[in-house]
């Protein structure tokens, strides 16, 4: 049948794998500048920061009093009282009070997952518009009581008589009074994310210099993007801060090279991961406005890029079969295959810089024929990412990484890059705690 290929060609390429669904469009984004933990946002709660990010988005696009289809956001470090964090932020924002909202939590992939979830609802016609986002405060993190104290307190609450209450209290031990400070340690291994990554860094022989070079590029690219006004319509100042506090426009390989390693010091071989090539604990919030084409047209809103497709993956890091942050490496070939694409089809690569070596390990894995054959089940290497297309406006090493906010930061920046270029595609890769990872494709709107 000669007509079949023509029909396939007539369908927009972006809809491969999702034929029949309509487009979900990135309209724009807004975030507050990210700040180092314990800094200018030390007194700001997740709810305040998320509300500020929403209000900036509302102001940018004139959404005051509007009922948005749905708002999805989340936080990784979350107080139990914030069970309805996103809905509470909506109620405190300039959006209409009858805008529904839900929370998502997928560690560092939270923000990207909210974009994917709402995009899918838009594609299915369930909603016309949505705001995706995330927030995290390492400053205002919840501090939990010990397991022993928690059990005693619960038993105390259940006790009816005084003897029962005294019996409950007698079970309390001095050690139970020590609070559990929040950590980024994996529950099943007790290792911090940095120590996990150090294992992977060593496995892929990622050099100190390569990591420092990547960190330097991130800072230089982001500083240049600020200077050319790239973030003028992506960032709204908060509490007197107007640029990301972690950004060091004047850093250099010498300065980065002078920092002492902080992770992997107990491993054999050279420790290479420093505070300069790892992201610091960060406070911040970000949001992305999504909509159908109809919605954007009806409201005279810009259409920056289409959300094409996404894929999640997870790896078994617990038994040491794979590195904690390597899941995106596995998600990537599945996404590319489904969309019949290769790295050559992309003009921008946004690979979240949890650590410089996370990015470099991923790139190395995709270039490694043996790894791709045995671990990814491919016939050869997946391919090489053109480094000139990688994180061209800086990424988490420069901006900092408020866990759940990073995905929305990346989506908004990438969508704007694609709109500026006027053509092409962008690939997003975000690693997450628990051995998870999410990758996604955005595509420029055809003029």
């Amino acid at each position: 049948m000669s007509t079949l290929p023509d029909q396939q060609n007539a369908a927009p390429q972006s809809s491969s794998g999702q034929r029949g669904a309509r487009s979900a469009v990135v309209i724009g984004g807004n975030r507050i500048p990210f700040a180092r933990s314990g800094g200018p946002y030390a007194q700001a709660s997740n709810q305040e920061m998320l509300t500020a990010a929403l209000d900036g988005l509302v102001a940018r696009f004139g959404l005051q009093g509007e009922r948005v289809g749905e708002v999805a956001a989340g936080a990784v470090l979350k107080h139990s009282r914030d069970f309805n964090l996103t809905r509470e932020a909506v109620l405190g924002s300039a959006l209409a009070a009858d805008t529904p909202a839900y929370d998502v939590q997928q560690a560092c992939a939270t923000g990207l997952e909210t974009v994917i979830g709402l995009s899918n609802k838009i594609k299915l016609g369930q909603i016309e518009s949505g705001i995706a986002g995330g927030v995290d405060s390492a400053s205002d993190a919840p501090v939990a009581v010990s397991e022993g104290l928690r059990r005693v307190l619960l038993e105390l609450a259940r006790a009816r008589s005084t003897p029962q209450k005294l019996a409950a209290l007698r079970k309390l031990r001095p050690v139970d009074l020590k609070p559990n400070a929040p950590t980024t340690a994996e529950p099943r291994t007790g290792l911090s994310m940095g120590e996990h990554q150090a294992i992977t860094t060593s496995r892929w022989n990622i050099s100190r210099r390569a990591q420092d070079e990547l960190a330097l590029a991130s800072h230089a690219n982001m500083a240049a993007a600020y200077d050319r006004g790239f973030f003028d319509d992506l960032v709204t100042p908060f509490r007197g801060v107007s640029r990301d506090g972690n950004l060091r426009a004047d850093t250099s390989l010498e300065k980065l090279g002078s920092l002492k390693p902080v992770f992997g010091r107990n491993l054999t071989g050279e420790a290479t991961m420093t505070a300069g090539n790892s992201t610091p604990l960060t406070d911040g919030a970000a949001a992305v406005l999504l909509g159908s084409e109809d919605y954007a047209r009806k409201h005279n809103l810009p259409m920056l890029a289409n959300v094409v497709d996404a894929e999640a993956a997870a790896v078994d890091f617990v038994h040491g079969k794979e590195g904690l942050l390597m899941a995106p490496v596995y998600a990537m070939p599945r996404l590319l295959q489904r969309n019949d694409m290769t790295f050559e089809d992309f003009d921008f690569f946004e690979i979240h810089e949890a650590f410089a070596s996370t990015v470099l390990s991923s790139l190395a894995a995709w270039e490694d024929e043996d790894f791709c054959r045995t671990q990814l089940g491919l016939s050869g290497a997946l391919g090489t990412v053109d480094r000139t297309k990688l994180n061209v406006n800086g990424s988490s090493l420069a901006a900092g990484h408020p866990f759940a906010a990073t995905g929305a930061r990346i989506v908004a920046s990438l969508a704007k890059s694609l709109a500026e270029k006027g053509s092409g595609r962008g690939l997003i890769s975000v690693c997450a705690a628990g051995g998870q990872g999410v990758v996604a494709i955005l595509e420029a709107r055809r003029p």
Partner: protein
Amino acid sequence: MTDTYLNLVNAQPLSRIAKAAGLPRPVPLRRYAPDAPLVPGPVLVLGRSRSTQDMAATLLEWNLDVRRHLRPKEKFGAAVVVLDDLAHPGELSEVFLELGHGLRNLLPGGRIVTISRPVTSEISPQTAAARQAVDGTLRSLAKELRGGATANGILLGEGVNTGAPSVRGTLEFLLSGKSAYVDGQFIAVGSDHGAPPRSAELPLAGRTAVVTGAARGIGAEIVRVLRRDGAHIIAVDVPAAGEQLAQVANHAGGTALQVDVTAPDAAERILRHAATRYGGLDIMVHNAGITRDRLLANMDQARWSSVLAVNVESQLRINEKLLSSDHFNSNGSIVCLASTSGIAGNRGQTNYAASKAGVIGMVRATADALVGSGRTINAVAPGFIETDMTARIPFATREVARRLSSLQQGGLPLDVAEAVSFLASTNAAGINGQVLRVCGQNLVGA
């Protein structure tokens, strides 16, 4: 900034003491409220020309209590003095003396408005003398009025008669509380352009306005008033002011656009935003401005250049793009913020006065090019306005500065915003190239 002195002298027992001692006695000004009458009492219409009767008829249409003569001791809210056919200085005495006899009965917040013609090169010396005499009379009368009353004039351009839309619009503005801090000023109506707004309550309905420097102070107030008057708002300020800008935009139901007006592509970004989101632009308010005060002897390059760059060079560049763009609509209005410092000068402000005088020059030259186009450009020159900026002036200097006007108090950002909104309305489409001072007839300056 609270005017403590104003509050004190309006409360017993200090009001009596202030009166006995001959101290300044500023009163709270009559400002616009949607449900308040246009004027606080009957309107006296004086004049002998044929237009006088037409003017009285117009005021009757506005449901005002119009009088051609006052009964003894009758209180009145405003007087409109029609002098459009003056030919000789001798003709002034009758109307002004009649006005003078009743002046003690002008209610607080009252208004005197003269309607006359400007001096031009084509008229006889005696006509010119008569017309110029109105200027001196009015400015002196404004200084005699108390109780927050003001006196202002309308000048009719060539071929413009008292029935022109912008004459009626200007008269309405001057009679209303919207002109509370405009005193001793003349507004020239140069053409028959313009039309009364479809809605008196929402005179800017359907018009889209850009306000620069919108994050705080006078700019934020201009946004609020333009929105009150029905305009769609694009609030512009530098990215660093984005947090307040977002709040201003959200309160006004508008959009926030973070752009530094000195950026080379500022005009393109503003026009693109207006075209995409609102289908075009009708009103451009150049409010963004900075001060970097120093005596000239201590002035450095950075202070001088930054003030000129923000206050006037950005306006020049943006206007050039605006006026060559189809996205700036055919009846578009540009309103530029000048300053009385740019008219009278101010110690320590050579750079600022240069920029603001430059704005006035720019407005006049641009206006000449816009004649007949349907577009207009005008300036508003604030005097002493109670803002964060003036709150930083040392106490004694600030107290003196406040009392230096005929209204013996500082103006509010609202007063500036009202003037901007008026000049941005179709009511003012016949006004072009004017500099409207909002200064309470400050003693310094023209």
